[in-house]
């Protein structure tokens, strides 16, 4: 899941080397924290969170096999 968020974020931002993804897990939940450069926030969130939601939708699809709930947070 972490790899997917990283791949998607790096495909969208200008400052690829400032993308970092941290994944923490419990037995029921997977929490993913995406951090990008402040200037790139708009590129991973989008108008009304459209891009962020698309990222979450894909991550949820990837998590189906896993069976756990995934939560993606975006930070600068």
């Amino acid at each position, binding site marked *: 899941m972490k*790899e997917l968020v990283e791949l*998607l974020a790096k*495909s969208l931002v200008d400052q690829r080397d400032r993308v970092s993804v941290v994944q923490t897990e419990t037995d029921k939940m997977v929490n993913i924290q995406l951090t990008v450069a402040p200037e790139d926030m708009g590129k991973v969130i989008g108008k009304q969170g459209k*891009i962020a939601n*698309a990222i979450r*939708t894909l991550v949820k699809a*990837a998590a*189906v096999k896993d069976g756990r709930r995934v939560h993606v947070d975006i930070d600068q």
Partner: protein
Amino acid sequence: MKVTEKTGKTVEDAVTAGLIELGVEREKAVIEVLEEPVKKGLFGLLGTTAARVRISYEDDPGEMALDFIRSVCKVMDVQAVCGVERRGEFWSVNVSGSELGILIGRRGETLEALQYLTNLAVAKRVGERIRIVVDVEGYRLRREETLIRLAKRLSEKVKRTGSRVVLEPMNPHERRIIHTALQDESRISTFSEGDEPNRRVVISLRRGREF
């Protein structure tokens, strides 16, 4: 894809020459060193052999879309075969394989997200907006046929009962399929109401003939 091979005194010289020839920035190019310069003779007294590099970069939006989708499939652990073809103004990417329901999602939700992100990722690399349509296992075509059948059936019902029918929420593309399917029906009018993402098509009798 554009490719060139260059030689030079040092690897750096060869790379620079190649980048200039292709007219591409370093970050967008793939650089492979084919031969490092090697000193000839004792202590390099006979000079050094030339450095040889291969520089390539992708300039085709269709191939970029394939790159992106293949990478996504790989990290999602989904086995898929992808192909792309240009259709006039846009590129059409087809993804096929088994177990691809995961890439389609509920009412094509995951497929929409994948298509949206593919368009953004390619636009980012090309520097301009490019339209890419992504389909998985012919889902879009099947969905279009289903929507057209649904539109025809409901329009018959509206003509029979005289009361309007409100469809379930759909994305702009799907709503357009419904409007287009019924545009030649002289007794029927269609319009959309509500706000995204809950905008719905309404099928009703054409005004003036309602009563």
